[in-house]
């Protein structure tokens, strides 16, 4: 059996926030996006779907995969955990708390939970959050667990029960290699890996082996190493506006003429 744990997070859909709200939020230091719809972090979503694809592929080789899902966050996590159970995740864990701008807390929470339970062959997650974007959590979890880590993963395939073939991207190269388990995979941008949708029958038949709910504060490390960290001080809004000329005639040909004139002036077209 190959044991796989997916770590994911829910994030507010900040694409909907206006420039004015960002400006105001940075000035006041108050950024509360609880009114926005929560969605799975895009790279975490790819990681979830890749794990499901790996499970399906492994089944074709008569290899069983046990999937577990873990998330640090508030109550918005729960619906997604239910969805994952319907998709066949055997175990779930909700670590309740906010570690967004405290990556060390996220690292401690994830690592301790995994170390306290059955050892995992694959830990898989997105490379970075869309909020803090520290990109540190997967790598530091790998360091804490003492396992190999591969970043910017774009594909995974079964080799046998002890190894998988991983494709990953590094600065203009795509590298494919067979990797011995255990390993932590940090998934990057992967085309067309949206999480599948469970059927009503899947949901009705869903029955996890285990559901854990823990408070993040129970997992905080008080040793000296955790004091070495970046401490968030303030936000700043950077105005990159250019004061454009705006054309709003509703006439495509006039619009095109204005663009042609600009291209000629910039020397791109003679």
């Amino acid at each position, binding site marked *: 059996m190959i044991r796989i744990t997916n770590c994911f997070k829910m994030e507010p859909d*900040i694409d909907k926030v206006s*420039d004015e709200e*960002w400006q105001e939020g940075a000035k006041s230091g108050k*950024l509360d996006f609880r009114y926005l719809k929560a969605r799975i972090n895009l790279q975490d979503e790819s990681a979830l779907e890749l794990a499901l694809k790996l499970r399906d592929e492994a089944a074709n080789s008569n290899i069983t995969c046990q999937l577990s899902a873990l998330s640090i966050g508030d109550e918005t996590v729960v619906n997604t955990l239910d969805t994952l159970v319907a998709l066949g995740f055997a175990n779930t864990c909700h670590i309740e708390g906010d570690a967004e*701008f405290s990556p060390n807390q996220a690292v401690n929470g994830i690592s301790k939970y995994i170390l306290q339970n059955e050892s995992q062959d694959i830990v898989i997650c997105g490379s970075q959050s869309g*909020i803090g*974007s520290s990109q*540190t959590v997967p*790598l530091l979890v790998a*360091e804490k667990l003492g396992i*190999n880590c591969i970043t*910017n993963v774009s594909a995974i395939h079964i080799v046998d029960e002890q190894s998988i*073939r991983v494709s990953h991207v*590094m*600065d*203009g*190269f*795509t*590298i*494919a290699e*067979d*990797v*011995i388990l255990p390993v932590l995979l940090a998934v*990057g*941008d*992967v*085309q*067309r890996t949206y999480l599948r949708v469970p059927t009503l029958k899947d949901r009705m038949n869903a029955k996890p082996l285990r559901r854990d709910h823990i408070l993040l504060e129970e997992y905080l490390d008080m040793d000296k*190493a955790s*004091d*070495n*960290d*970046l*401490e*968030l*001080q*303030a936000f*700043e809004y950077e105005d*990159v*506006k*250019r004061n*454009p*000329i*705006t*054309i*709003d005639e509703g*006439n*495509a*040909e006039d*619009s*095109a*003429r204005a*663009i*042609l004139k*600009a*291209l000629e002036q*910039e*020397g*791109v*077209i003679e």
Partner: protein
Amino acid sequence: MRIYGVINSCIGEAYEQLVNIASLAYNSNIAIGDVHIIELSGNIEEYRVSLALEVLESECNNASMILFPGSDWGRELAIRLGSRLGGVSAVDIISMNMENTSVTRKAYAGNLLAKYRINGAPWCFSIDRSVRSEHILANDISVFASYDTHCLDAIKSENDSSNKVCVRDDTGNGLEDADFVLACGQGIRNKDSFDSIIKTGEALGATVGASRPVAMNAWIPMSGMLGVSGSMIHPKVCIVAAASGSPAFFAGIEHSQYIIAINTDRGAPIMSKCDLAIVDDAREVIDKLALLVGNTGDI
């Protein structure tokens, strides 16, 4: 303060990496002559993170600060080395203030800058790709305090992987060298429309790129993606067609000399970040533009 800069000639151009490091040093009032350079060399097929970390843990055990250039390999080594040395790590640093020991980096998908105080040492930072000081000249990078090369191929170690194949990706379809770019967003609506606009754009003489949602839908290869996770371009002209202009995307095109945005939404962020904003349907305008250019016989 003992400061190191690490470059990796297995992966990428050494000169560009040195300029990135020198630029952050310059901007932070650190003398370039105080920075010791460690070069990791060898073949990409033999490159192993574990070997690189072994070398750096040994060479940098007395370091106050270790800087890595903006790159995938640099981010990984900065974080893992910081952990192994018991220090503080961070990636994509835009600026550093030595007086109040703070760093600034992007947050909320580039919508804001976040300022952090650094607690602990040593500091292991990777630098944002965009950090490049116009004050750094070619001569400046020859005055580093020292320059040591370590060939990773020569070091024997236990292999935790096998059957390794490395393929160089199509380098952004020439986006980073293009003078004229057409950048398309999700407002193009579907793959057929997108394929059509690519043909029109190329007929105009533009190199075509796209926003992250378009690339993730596989309407274009990942090498055509623009933004913090893709290509960062500096053409004479960039036409942004049907893309809202999120900060992560805009970071890829902000160094364009002249930006033209076409969008049906007058309030889209890109419409205030460009030089010429056209409120119209991008597909129709680009088609008309191609006809006009065709009529003047310029393509």
